[in-house]
């Protein structure tokens, strides 16, 4: 159980005829154990052991990284290691089901990790299916997996993978890492988005161990069960979109599960000590000047328990000073979402040889990144384009760009910086 605070940032004033209500819902979890211990956890390490892992010292690094991950699993957590190729093989434990972490089982698992061998192809869907089956043997636990791959899914179609993901959704969360440049960003993003996890790129084998440690430590720090955003909107209105905008952009609009005619739940996964921001846009039929209505009631729920709540309002006014006031948070995150889109569109145009579109889109991205102080993204953009003038978004495409730079930019395109909070 964790302590949550919910804040709403919006300009509630709309001009006559105004119908879009935008608000940033900012949620912070203090992670204090207010009502008893954190829920029991289950953790599975899914490590790619396909033939390609035998190159560039990757397999040895994967063994070390898996051992490091096991090190971070705290006592009492149910866990397993799955070695993935074109099939999934449970590397640990030897018996059916999950092992319970203790000094001796961790040691056994680390020994098993040292015996991992590389051979065969890649069928990530089968790894996820195996993980779901193992998690099912530990009901009531909060389930999390980390997935490492170095190549693209060869042995299944995108549709097969999507089918597996649909079956796994809501059963466990999965953070994904791709090592090197032979994997598909869109594929891992698909998995991470469906399973409410993160996706990132590891340049080389030497980054694996630290990445594995960080992921497991973060998972061990989660203090809640599955938390959802419950969004109530009044009769005659609709949610135009709901997306997470910090720490990264993820659209949740099509993840709505209807509770009743006016209410839907959106999954957010488990929470540790962290802050996340969400951008909610509600389409409302315009009302009379002077009318005030509630455009949305946003509640944070764990099961049926309400952890926090915020109100999104709409007031119609003919006072232009009020209705034209721009809310800083809404503007900032609208820009961050556009930044992510511009990078993805720009890189796609660049790959397709459409230099004009690529230059325009990446130029706009540079402008947005510069304006918002998103230095990390700015740096990545500079490896793909030469920036003549960031303020106007004047850029030239670089002739030679390394695959790693391009993939790093694509993978991290959704990373945002937080708005400087105003009160």
């Amino acid at each position, binding site marked *: 159980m964790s302590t949550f605070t919910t804040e709403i940032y919006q300009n509630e004033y709309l001009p006559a005829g105004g119908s879009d209500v935008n608000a940033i819902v900012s949620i912070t979890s203090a992670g204090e154990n207010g009502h008893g211990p954190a829920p029991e956890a289950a953790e599975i390490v899914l490590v790619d052991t396909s033939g390609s892992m035998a190159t560039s010292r990757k397999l040895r690094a994967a063994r070390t990284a898996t051992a490091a991950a096991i090190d971070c699993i705290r006592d009492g957590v149910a866990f397993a290691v799955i070695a993935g190729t074109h099939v999934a093989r449970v590397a640990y434990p030897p018996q059916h089901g999950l092992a319970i972490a203790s000094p001796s089982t961790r040691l056994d698992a680390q020994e098993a990790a040292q015996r991992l061998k590389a051979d065969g192809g890649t069928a990530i869907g089968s790894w996820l299916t195996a993980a779901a089956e193992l998690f099912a043997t530990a009901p009531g636990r909060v389930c999390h997996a980390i997935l490492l791959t170095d190549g693209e899914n060869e042995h299944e179609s995108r549709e097969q993978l999507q089918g597996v993901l649909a079956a796994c959704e809501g059963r466990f969360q999965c953070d994904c890492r791709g090592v090197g440049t032979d994997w598909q960003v869109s594929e891992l993003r698909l998995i991470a988005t469906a399973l409410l996890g993160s996706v990132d790129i590891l340049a080389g084998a030497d980054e694996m161990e630290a990445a594995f440690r960080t992921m497991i430590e973060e998972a061990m720090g989660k203090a809640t069960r599955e938390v959802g955003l419950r969004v*109530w*909107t*009044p*009769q*005659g*209105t609709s949610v135009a979109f709901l997306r997470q905008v910090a720490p990264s952009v993820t659209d949740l609009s099509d993840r709505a599960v209807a509770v009743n005619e*006016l209410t839907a739940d959106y999954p957010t996964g488990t929470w540790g000590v962290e802050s996340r921001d969400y951008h909610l846009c509600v389409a*409302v039929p315009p009302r009379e000047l*002077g*009318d*005030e*209505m*509630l*455009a949305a*009631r946003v509640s944070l729920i764990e099961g049926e328990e309400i952890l926090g*709540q915020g*109100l999104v309002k709409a007031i119609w006014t003919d006072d232009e000073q009020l209705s034209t006031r721009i809310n800083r948070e809404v503007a900032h995150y609208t820009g961050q979402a556009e930044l992510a889109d511009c990078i993805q569109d720009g890189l796609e145009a660049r790959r397709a040889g459409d230099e004009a579109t690529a230059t325009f889109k990446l130029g706009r991205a540079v402008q947005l990144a510069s304006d918002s102080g998103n230095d990390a993204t700015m740096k990545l953009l500079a490896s793909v384009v030469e920036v003549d003038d960031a303020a106007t978004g004047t850029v030239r495409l670089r002739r030679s760009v390394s695959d790693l730079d391009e993939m790093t930019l694509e993978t991290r395109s959704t990373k945002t910086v937080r708005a400087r909070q105003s009160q």
Partner: protein
Amino acid sequence: MTVVCSNGHPSATADYCDQCGVLIAKVSAGEQTEILSVVDDDDTSAVAPDEPCPGCGTMSHGDGHFCECCGYDFRTSSMPNNGSSEGVSGVAGAAVEPVVWEAVVRADREQLERFGDEGLDFPDAWEGLTVALVARAVRIGRNCEQAEAHEQKIELSGPPLDPGMSREHAMLERHSDGVWEVRDLGSTNGTWINAELAPLAGARRLQDGDRIGLGAWTMIEIRAREP
């Protein structure tokens, strides 16, 4: 607790209607006592009006059940519970025994008789509506364009439209001692209180169950109800 919004929806939430989202009552820690702390006429207060309120020291605390300034409860000698969270629980926590005041609007044949135009169509099929009184001032009329921001509106613009209703017909106001008063806003056809025509100037105090007749056939009963 269920309240009824100005559009007639029963709502489980007291700040905004949980059906249409319309504002019912401003709820915040400072305003909680504005909403539902209502005094029964029979209450004997523990603090005389000329003594300072033990909660905040103000003299102008009224002579009712709760201090108008800080919400101090004179009968139980306790401060209101402001520790409760926002929303419904905050409203309920404002008063120890909160009362919800409602205006029950009906089409009434007695009023039609008093109005004295037998040729009018009486809306037999109309079941009327119930409105929770959530502001201190409630303006009643066909089209209350002059209503100020803090006023609640009961706009009876039909259908069915009462042809004897003025645009700005009458005003309900909660007096500082918690008692509701009604005053005619210079309507064309006047306002009746329990079958008696209200004076053109000044306000009349109301009691639970009083009936206000307006226009050709509109009857509004003011009712206190346990939430």
